[in-house]
């Protein structure tokens, strides 16, 4: 068999190409039109940075972008820490309560976000808490912990108990065993979880919509309000910037382990590939 064998049918290549076009065409359009010299959303007419300039001059949009980055960053740090702790606790404890807790974790994942949003809104209203960026962050953290725990727990399960037992066997206290052996081994999964949380939080609309105060609003909510006054090509510039922030964070998560001399990155955990 020369080159194209029985196991590599031609139509797979076509299907893959179509999937990629389907996935990326809209994104490419947004990026392209963000550099459009004209006002049109349909016709490209020369390249310019005018929409980026316009974005930068719009103080409220700028504040929203910064607010969204802030929300995502704080949510990522807190939810990753709490979720990892929860994963360690529910995996290593043999009690029935721990197993039940593990099951309950799935509930936030299957709860429609609109329900989560409305209930967060009602809760804050009943507690008399004024809506602000803080309430958005709280809602995001609550929602994100499950993702972290599930990703980290999967890794923990595949590690098995032997590593920790080996550490205990060599004289490490349970706390030292977690700190010196388990966490370093979990590191790629923790990074992967952080990536997911950042991406979820950064572009979240529904939860943010129900829990945000007046100003500054998270960027997705701000964009939505702007749309009510007609679509400006600035939206394309904002979209491109959001994409850049997300990609930047993923790049960070991919590079960090390499900088620290590790062979496996958070990206590899997510995509299932192993980088040797």
């Amino acid at each position, binding site marked *: 068999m020369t080159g194209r064998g029985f196991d590599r049918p031609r139509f797979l290549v076509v299907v893959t190409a179509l999937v990629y076009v389907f996935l990326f065409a809209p994104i490419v359009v947004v990026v392209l039109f963000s550099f459009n010299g004209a006002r049109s959303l349909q016709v490209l007419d020369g390249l310019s940075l005018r929409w980026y300039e316009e974005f930068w001059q719009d103080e409220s949009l700028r504040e929203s972008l910064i607010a969204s980055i802030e929300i995502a960053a704080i949510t990522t740090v807190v939810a990753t820490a709490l979720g990892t702790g929860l994963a360690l606790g529910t995996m290593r404890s043999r009690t029935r309560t721990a197993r039940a807790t593990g099951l309950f974790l799935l509930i936030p994942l299957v709860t429609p976000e609109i329900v989560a949003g409305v209930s967060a809104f009602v809760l804050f209203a009943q507690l008399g808490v004024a809506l602000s960026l803080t309430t958005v962050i709280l809602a995001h953290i609550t929602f994100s912990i499950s993702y972290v725990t599930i990703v980290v727990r999967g890794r923990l399960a595949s590690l098995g108990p032997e*590593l920790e*037992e080996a550490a205990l066997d060599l004289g490490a206290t349970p706390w030292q065993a977690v700190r010196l052996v388990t966490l370093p*081994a979990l590191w790629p999964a923790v990074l992967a979880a952080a990536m997911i949380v950042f991406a979820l939080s950064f572009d979240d609309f529904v939860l943010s919509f129900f829990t945000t105060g007046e100003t500054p609003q998270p960027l997705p909510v701000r964009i939505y309000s702007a749309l009510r006054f007609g679509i400006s090509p600035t939206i394309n510039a904002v979209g491109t910037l959001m994409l850049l922030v997300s990609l930047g964070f993923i790049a960070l998560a991919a590079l960090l382990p390499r900088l620290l001399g590790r062979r496996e990155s958070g990206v590899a955990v997510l995509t299932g590939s192993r980088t040797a």
Partner: protein
Amino acid sequence: MSTERTAPAGTGDWAVELEDATKRFGGFTAVDRMSLQIERGEFFSLLGPSGCGKTTTLRLIAGFEQPTEGAIRLDGEDVAKVPPYRRHVNTVFQSYALFEHLDLVENVAFGLRRRKVAKGEIKQRVAQALELVALDHRATARPAELSGGQRQRVALARALVNRPSVLLLDEPLGALDLKLRKQMQVELKRIQREVGITFVYVTHDQEEALAMSDRIAVMSDGVIEQLGAPEDVYEHPVKAFVAGFIGISNLLPGTVEQGAVRLSTGALVPAPVPDGVPEGAEVQLSVRPEKLLVEELEHGMATVEGTVAERVYMGTATQLIIELAPGARLVALEQNTARARADDRWELGDRVRVGWHPEHGQVLR
């Protein structure tokens, strides 16, 4: 490292002592009122099929499991309530459980660092330990860069460097291929002799246990079926399970008759019937295949007759399966020596007489 005896001079008589140790998981009894004593410097094996409780026994000694009942003593001290990190034992895990994020030096130094050994001493002892397992040239490698055999040796060095009073090994050679396993058996035995540490070795591989151990405890269903030197358990199994599990054994059913055994095939053969086995008792007569002689009978032998039913050439030996009666078969092993190749000697269907010296028979109830 070669001459020092590293175990602290304990007060107890034994390195490890189990007294009626029992471990239950829910309704399942993994270890059932087990009592045993292991001497200092002994190479002791727990041998049995999977699920027999040998690994649980090891985990009880290591401290990963607490006994439901009974006592476990290390150097005479009851350790039932002592967590693993305060026990003076170390384990070589079946999966090795190396720390992938640390290089070999840091893997091996892990235990010494936890016990706050002085920096200079750590350096020296780690170097010694890596030398002992012939990995000093890979000191800065990460475990992922090593072969299976090398990883196994790192696990060994990481445990031995702490000079435990007892080293626990949980099927440490299980993941290696046959040739490497044989090499490592010799290597392990050499290292054990050099460091003089008590080894408790868990395996399901009877050859491994026979080759390395000073004593073997053959386990099944959470209890010790037989405990003794390799020659004892092999030559004189006291139960059908032991005879069947260690090596190949011919188990012929029969009844005791006039101090001999009447086989179910009808033949009356002389056999060492132990005291206390009454006339008419149903027994099994166990004979090892290599003790059987085909047609080379000598005076005073127990003999039976049968037909050659199968012939399996195995290189150094040929295995003959001889049918005495429908359903009653004997396995005989004939060495292929310079003088004779057994597969040429017999044809399928040949009528042969098979004999053995009565003392090679073992009467099992």
